[in-house]
């Protein structure tokens, strides 16, 4: 399988990136690891005129700044994140989620910024269109959906593994552009529109990720469900972070983020509320997981039906909560 023709520019600084993005606009594509972009280009889903290679940009090592926040460069590879002692200490949830992505070989190239900016996916969209599905679907600029015939909009889902983990950790991101760097909560970065899933303009790029300091007493857990368990996008992911009272048994605040079942990651807010102020117990976890499965309506995707995913969601959240409780106790 060959890539279509394009011109290539190797970026050496964020300023240069901004300048070239301004010049080429929509004709250019930034590439970091390329593990998401190149397969889509090989399938003929997009043909950028210019590839702007970010591998020449400096990779900032993870560091903790004065206020205890963990700062990560967007160009850090997922393998690098999972290996880094500081990340494993300050944000073990992120290291765990990063290890779930693709395979060893994919994680060596794929970057944190790239995972945050992953395209939404669909069984029909993510394959070669050379001889089938010739009429363009919503995602390819047309006006029909192959997944749900008669559907009114694109139903592709957002499958990045690290993102639910980052949202549960309260992460924000830095976005560089012509007007300097703006910082937003990662949760606000996703539009919910499967065709344009990211709130970013073509002249901007994600430069860094900031994760607030961990609570003194608390715990996190990540659960990913897929059929094979390797080199696979998730059917469902759940990332849970609990902050505990000083007694170590009562939950003072909870964040539950669910991925892969909608065009944007989703918070299970009612299930979070159900945990707040309560003593941890298996019954509470079961109830909270049931509430989450009630408030989030999964989209069917990649051959999984919506009712099946709803059940998966409940099981994964319950297991993640049980894993957090075990970590809090130890």
């Amino acid at each position, binding site marked *: *399988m*060959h*890539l*279509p*023709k*394009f*011109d*290539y520019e*190797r970026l050496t600084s964020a300023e240069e990136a901004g300048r070239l993005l301004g010049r080429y606009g929509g004709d250019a594509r930034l590439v970091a690891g*390329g*593990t998401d972009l*190149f*397969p889509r280009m*090989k*399938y003929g889903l997009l043909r950028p005129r210019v*590839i702007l*290679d970010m*591998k020449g940009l400096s990779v900032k090592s993870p560091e903790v700044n004065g206020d205890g926040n963990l700062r990560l460069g967007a160009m850090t590879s997922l*393998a690098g994140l999972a290996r880094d002692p500081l990340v494993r200490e300050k944000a073990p949830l992120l290291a765990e989620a990063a290890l779930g992505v*693709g*395979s*060893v*070989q*994919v994680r*060596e*190239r794929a970057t944190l910024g790239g995972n945050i900016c992953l395209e939404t996916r669909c069984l029909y969209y993510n394959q070669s269109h050379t001889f089938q599905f010739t009429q363009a679907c919503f995602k390819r600029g047309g006006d029909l959906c192959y997944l749900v015939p008669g559907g009114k909009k694109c139903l592709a889902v957002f499958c990045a593994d690290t993102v639910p983990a980052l949202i549960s950790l309260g992460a924000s991101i830095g976005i560089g552009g012509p007007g300097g760097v703006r910082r937003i909560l990662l949760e606000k970065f996703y539009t919910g529109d499967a065709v344009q899933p990211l709130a970013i303009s073509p002249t901007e790029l994600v430069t860094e990720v900031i994760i607030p300091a961990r609570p003194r007493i608390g715990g996190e857990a990540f659960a990913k469900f897929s059929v094979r*368990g*390797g*080199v696979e996008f998730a059917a469902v992911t759940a990332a849970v972070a609990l902050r505990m009272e000083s007694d170590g048994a009562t939950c003072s605040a909870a964040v539950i983020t669910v991925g892969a079942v909608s065009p944007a990651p989703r918070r299970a807010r009612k299930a979070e509320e159900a945990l707040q102020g309560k003593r941890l117990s298996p019954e509470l976890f079961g109830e909270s997981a049931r509430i989450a499965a009630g408030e989030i309506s999964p989209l069917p995707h990649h051959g999984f039906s919506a009712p099946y995913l709803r059940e998966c969601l409940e099981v994964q959240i319950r297991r993640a909560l049980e894993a957090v409780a075990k970590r809090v106790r130890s």
Partner: protein
Amino acid sequence: MKRLIELTVNGELHELAVEPQATLLDVLREQLGLTGTKEGCGTGECGSCTVLLAGRPVLSCLVLAMECQGQEVTTIEGLSVDGRLTPVQQAFQDRGAVQCGFCTPGMVLAATALLTENPRPSEAEIKKGLEGNLCRCTGYNKIIEAVKLAAESFNQK
């Protein structure tokens, strides 16, 4: 438009004129004739095209040759020295961990990378380390046995 890059492949420095859209896999196989590196899916799912880039396992079908400017690449052809197989290669042979052989170069390189980073992997760690390499003959048991054997001979040295 073609551009010149420098690439060290298996210890030998090459100056190559490459198109921007040429992948590392294209250049290894078609320009350097190193056909030990295989193309399976071409989209990053099977691991047949695994090579070591600066010592790390990557999928050569998803890396542009131009991205590798000035870097060091090790392919399956570069492992043995004067015909002497590495412990991983020898273990694959001894355990019969080869059926049709198409996945073998990728498997051997992924296993080599795994043992370099973790010389005493558990079975679960071996499976995780080889998760990106598919064997369509499904000869996984022998492959996992071979990696265990290779780990033993690695550690005896």
